[in-house]
C-alpha cells in the first residue's frame, strides 16, 4: 500500500473520535444511559480486529502481535491508568494490516467504529451531567475536569492529530525496516 492511500485510510478511521463526540453532544442523554456498555463494545471491536487479522495473516505472527498488544495495554494500564493505549495498539494494527488491502479495509472500518465509541466515552467522562457525575468507567478515569464543547473538541482534535501522525511514523518506520532487511 502506498503512503497516500495509508494516510487517507488513517484520516478516515481516526475521524471516528471527533464524529463520536459530536454525535454524543446531540444525543447526550441516550449515550449517558448506555455509558457502561461502551467499554464492552470497545473490547468487542478490538477482538473483532484481531479476528480479521487471524483470517488474513499467519497465525504465529498475529498471535505474537496479540500477546504484545494486550501485554502492552495491561502493563501501562495498571501503571499509568491511561486512556489512549488502545489507540497506540490500533495505530500499529493499521500499519500491519496495510500489507493486505482487504484486511486494511476491515480494520479501518472497525477503527472508525472504535473511534465513535471513544469519542462518546470521552464526552460522557468530561461533561457535567444532571443525573450523576461519572468518576470511573472501566479503565477510563475521570480527569477531574468538566469541559465545554469547544475545549472538548479541541482536546479530541489534538488526540486525533497525535495518533494520525503516530500511525504515519509507524508506517514509515515499517517501510524503513522492510528496506533495511
Amino acid at each position, binding site marked *: 500500500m502506498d503512503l497516500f492511500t495509508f494516510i487517507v485510510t488513517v484520516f478516515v478511521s481516526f475521524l471516528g473520535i471527533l464524529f463520536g463526540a459530536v454525535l454524543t453532544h446531540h444525543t447526550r442523554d441516550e449515550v449517558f444511559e448506555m455509558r457502561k456498555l461502551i467499554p464492552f463494545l470497545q473490547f468487542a471491536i478490538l477482538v473483532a480486529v484481531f479476528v480479521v487479522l487471524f483470517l488474513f495473516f*499467519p497465525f504465529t505472527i498475529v498471535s*505474537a502481535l496479540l500477546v504484545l498488544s494486550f501485554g502492552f495495554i495491561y502493563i501501562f494500564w495498571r501503571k499509568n491508568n491511561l486512556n489512549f493505549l488502545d489507540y497506540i495498539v490500533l495505530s*500499529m494494527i493499521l500499519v*500491519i494490516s496495510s*500489507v493486505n488491502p482487504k484486511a486494511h479495509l476491515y480494520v479501518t472500518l472497525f477503527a472508525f467504529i472504535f473511534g465513535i465509541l471513544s469519542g462518546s466515552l470521552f464526552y460522557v467522562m468530561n461533561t457535567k451531567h444532571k443525573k450523576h457525575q461519572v468518576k470511573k468507567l472501566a479503565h477510563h478515569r475521570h*480527569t*477531574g475536569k468538566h469541559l465545554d464543547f469547544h475545549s472538548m473538541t479541541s482536546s479530541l482534535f489534538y488526540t486525533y492529530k497525535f495518533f494520525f501522525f503516530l500511525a504515519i511514523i509507524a508506517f514509515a*518506520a515499517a517501510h524503513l*525496516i522492510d528496506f533495511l*532487511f
Partner: protein
Amino acid sequence: MRVKTKRGQTWSFDLIVAVVIFIVVVGIFYSLLNRSNEGTVDTQALESGAKSISYQLNCDVSPVFPPCFIENGEINETKLAVVAALPYADLKELLGTTEDFCIYLLDEENRIIPVIDENTPGIGSGSYLLNATLGCDGS
C-alpha cells in the same frame, strides 16, 4: 500541607520507550508479512475480473457492442467475428481490464471449439495456453 496529585494523562519515559519498541517490532512483523505475500497471486481478484468480462460479453446483461456477442443465450456469429477481429489491446481497453485474458468456447465434452477457424481458437493473449503448445490467439 496539600499534596498536589497528578490527574492528567502524561507520557512517562518508559511509555515512550515501550512505544518505540512496539513500532520496531511492528516494523519487523510488517517486513515478515510483506515477504510472505511476495509472489502470491490474488485469485479472488482474477476471478472477479473474469466474471466482469463474461458479463460484458452477454448482450442481455450489458448491451454494449462491441464487446458483447451473446444474445438470448446464443452466440451471434457476426458480432463474434467483429470482436475477434479487434486488436487485443483495444479489446482489453474495451473490457476495462489490465490483466491478460483468453475467451474461448468449449463443447459438452470440454473440447475447444475454434472461435473463427483452426488458426484462431480463442480471443485474447497468446501467452495464455489452451493446451501444451497452442496459444489463445493461435500462436
